[in-house]
């Protein structure tokens, strides 16, 4: 490997030196500490030594010439191996030595291309983190202007810039669709702006499902019906006579049916019971939950102590519940305390169905549409609370009450 012999600084005040004489010629072999030249400083003539073994490759300064301190005067081709080979050996020799590791650690940590544009980054206007500014510079974005227009938050961070940069290739509606469906912006080229239709076509042709988070209300429903499905139930099917109900049109079918159920419940305590560990809690009144749907959400408001209420009061309460549900004002306590449930799909023309028992209720009555003054009723009953015989008696009582003129007085 070549190394240069430079004009040495021989005293504090020396700035240049005159080469008095060469002691070697090009091609000569020299050993470490051999005198190769004599130079004159501002004070005295001194010897210049070789620092390594090697061959004089080139002499750069003629005798009698003056050169500044530090300037090469000759090149010597050293016999030592190249630096890289050499350090390899050193590494092997001193495996585990602290010096080697320290050297590696001090190898500059923060260098890469990004540092080159530093002066430009500091000129980026607007309030943003350094990383955000660097990204904005790369994307050619004017942070200050976008912040004035309200398109970027202040201060802006890296993700804000990234987000905006990506959204530029989409119309606002298209961008919203991407977010909703969780589709990567990278699937679209960045040569032009993509519109809503394009994104929607992409969704359709790739059959991408919309991923909707289950809201807390839906979660509660899922929890309840899952628990309900684990209950030991049996079912009883029959028809009730609806001629009297249809005759008294001043109140709806549901209102009349709540009334009838409440009367029957008072005669069968099993339907007023709740199972709690080793105890049965038997309520003195009949509280009835009624399924009311609003879109995909299902609510079970409870008509408390329905046995003590007149049909007019029940009707009023039902209207209040419906109003509360449509306005989102139904409170948790409005849905507690029942021991029996009613589900009516008659208004949709359904002939017959069965329902799931609500929360801690003992049973649920599923009511279908009335045809020829007859409506199908399915009782789904928790066998732990009410056995088949009692269930049958209860059904029988519902049938009697629905055609009892006294009820409709």
């Amino acid at each position, binding site marked *: 490997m070549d190394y240069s012999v430079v004009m040495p600084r021989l005293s504090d005040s020396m700035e240049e030196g005159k080469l008095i004489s060469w002691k070697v010629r090009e091609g000569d072999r020299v050993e470490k500490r051999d005198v190769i030249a004599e130079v004159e400083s501002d004070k005295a003539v001194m010897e210049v030594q070789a620092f390594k073994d090697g061959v004089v490759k080139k002499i750069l300064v003629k005798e009698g010439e003056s050169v500044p301190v530090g300037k090469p005067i000759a090149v010597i081709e050293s016999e030592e191996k190249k630096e890289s080979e050499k350090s390899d050996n050193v590494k092997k020799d001193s495996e585990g030595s*602290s010096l080697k590791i320290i050297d590696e*650690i001090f190898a500059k940590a*923060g260098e890469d291309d990004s540092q080159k544009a530093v002066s430009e*980054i500091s000129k980026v206007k607007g309030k943003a983190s*350094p*990383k955000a500014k660097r990204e904005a510079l790369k994307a050619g974005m004017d942070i200050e202007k976008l912040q004035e227009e309200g398109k970027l938050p202040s*201060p802006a*961070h890296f*993700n804000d810039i990234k987000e905006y940069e990506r959204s530029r290739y989409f119309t606002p509606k298209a961008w919203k669709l991407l977010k909703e469906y969780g589709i990567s912006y990278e699937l679209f080229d960045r040569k032009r702006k993509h519109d809503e239709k394009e994104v929607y076509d992409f969704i359709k042709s790739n059959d991408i499902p919309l991923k909707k988070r289950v809201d807390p209300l839906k979660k509660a429903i899922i929890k309840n019906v899952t628990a309900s499905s684990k209950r030991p139930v049996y079912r009883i099917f029959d028809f009730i006579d609806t001629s009297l109900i249809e005759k008294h049109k001043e109140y709806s079918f549901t209102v009349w049916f709540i009334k009838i159920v409440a009367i029957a419940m008072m005669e069968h305590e099993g339907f007023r019971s709740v199972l709690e560990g080793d105890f049965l809690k038997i309520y003195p009144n009949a509280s009835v939950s009624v399924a009311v749907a609003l879109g995909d959400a299902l609510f079970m408001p409870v008509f408390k102590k329905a046995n003590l209420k007149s049909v007019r009061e029940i009707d009023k309460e039902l209207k209040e519940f419906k109003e509360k549900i449509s306005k989102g004002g139904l409170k948790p306590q409005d849905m507690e305390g029942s021991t029996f449930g009613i589900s009516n799909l008659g208004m949709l023309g359904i002939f017959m169905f069965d329902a799931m028992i609500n929360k801690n209720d003992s049973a649920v009555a599923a009511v279908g549409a009335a045809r020829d003054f007859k409506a199908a009723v399915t009782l789904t009953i928790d066998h732990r609370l009410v056995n088949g015989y009692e269930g049958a008696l209860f059904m029988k009582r519902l049938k009697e009450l629905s055609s009892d003129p006294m009820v409709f007085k």
Partner: protein
Amino acid sequence: MLYREALNMAIDEMMAKDENVVILGEDVGRYGGSYRVTEGLVAKYGEKRVIDTPIAELSIVGNAVGMAMGGLRPIAEIMTANFSLLAFDQIINHMAKLRYMSAGKITLAMVVRMPGGVSRQLAAQHSESYEQMLSAVPGLIVFAASDVNYAYHALKKAILMDDPVIFLEHELLYNKEGEVNFDEDLDPFKARVVKEGDGITIVSYLKMVDDVMEAVGEIEDGLKTSVEVIDLCSLNPIDFKTLSSSIKKTGRLVVVEEDHKTGGYGASIVSFASEELFYELDAPPLRIASKDVPIPYNRRLELEVIPTPRKIAKRVMEWGVENGL
């Protein structure tokens, strides 16, 4: 294995391998060490190699320097970092400088071990951390062991080195459980990535690493991001390579230390990040440290002054929200 047992094993193995390895300090011999780190060694290697000294820290380190100059490999124990103040002249003017001032003719293959930090109600004079001072002395290598595996390997490597090493321990870590991977060729200068993540880099050392790890779950849940936790391990030199690759990835730096904030060790980490990685930062770096008061004796006040997992989580989350997370 316990942290103190790992340290004991490291010393024991090195003493068995090399008879030049000796230990000295207060109660290291017959008593087995204040924290039982040197337990059983005097019976095995005798009083000539396991030396009980008077209560005189300056002379403990001074003697160790002399022993090292004479070719031994002494391990000096200072009972707590608080008492190392008495030995600072030997540590700074002799231990750190003799190799440089003798143009490398004198080497000091020696280790000074000391536990520091806030234990539990030991009051102001026994609760300090002096890593900021010790790490600021050129010529000293400073290791800080926060886990059992590092404690074992790093102490062995420290004993093997020809350079003087300050080996920091923490009083609350001595009974920490952990595994030692005996097959590992651990590089004691390398920072340890305790947990990977790409949202926030939290840098810490010694006992605070455990506190940070306890806080991480809450932070990740609260800020909906992932946290990378780095244990510095070597406080001087610092493993800037590991630090910078993490900071480049996350753009967000938090440093947690038990020392007082003003002039605390974490300042140098934040300074590195703002000097070298300014344009990589997506938020101002955050330092979580003890309050600038002498550590109180009262337990409630003590906990009020030092960082705790709960306080770390709360502060990082506030900072995250303030800065666009």
